[in-house]
């Protein structure tokens, strides 16, 4: 399934805040963000969490038990943000 407009916007935030070499269009909505896939690690996730909270007003905690699910893909991250966004 192709990325939605919201997902594209989030992909751009990921690429910009993490200084990634890939372009936002290349991030597959269902591919994993962690490890294999986009290759992000725990420090990237912290960076991304703060960038997201600044942009959307959604607080993401590093010790949240649901993090594996939330950060499992662009799509799941976007769903989480849209459910909780304050901005």
């Amino acid at each position, binding site marked *: 399934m192709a990325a939605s407009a919201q997902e594209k916007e989030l992909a751009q935030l990921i690429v910009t805040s993490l200084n990634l070499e890939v372009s936002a269009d290349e991030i597959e909505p269902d591919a994993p963000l962690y490890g294999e896939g986009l290759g992000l690690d725990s420090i990237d996730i912290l*960076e991304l969490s*703060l960038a997201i909270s600044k942009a959307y007003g959604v607080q993401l905690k590093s010790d949240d038990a649901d993090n594996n699910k939330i950060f499992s893909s662009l799509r799941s991250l976007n769903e989480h943000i849209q459910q909780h966004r304050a901005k």
Partner: protein
Amino acid sequence: MKTFAIQGRCLAAPPDWRERLAAMLGAKPRRIGNWAELGLYGALCCLADAGETALPPDALLMLGSRRGTYVPTGQVLDQMRDDLPMPLMFLQTQPSQLLALLAARMHWRGHAAFIAGGSPQALLELAAVQSGSAGALLGWVDEMDGGSTQWLRLKPCEVGGNEWKPAAAEALFMPDITHLRTAGNILDNTD
């Protein structure tokens, strides 16, 4: 007093050092910042020049700088006017992050320290008392004025005393210097 032979060195970064660093690392570094990238480039070149792929476990890694991470520090202070700093930028304010990066890159675990300010000569004196038979990797990295990254791979050695000439402190990073002798800032050029 201690005598070192210079086994390898990096005295400057060429204009295309970023491309060269990316080639050495296999990818462009994306989150360590300019100062650490400069340091990483110089250290890896110096090790290669010494014919080493990894630093021995007992070697000492001593890093110094006049201004260090002042650029990311300024950026973080700007970020903090109305919000928290970004984590990666905060990490870039910590000079010791470069020690961890180097350790990881050199597949090495050992004694490493960052000394802020002072001079390369003072750093050499500290390295001389703290290093053992495996010697030291000594670096001086700054990003002012286009950036500089100067590194020496030093091994302790025994050399006779007669041919020693005193040299100016700036000679530490001169290409024709083959040996250094500490205490009294006596440097030598035995060529």
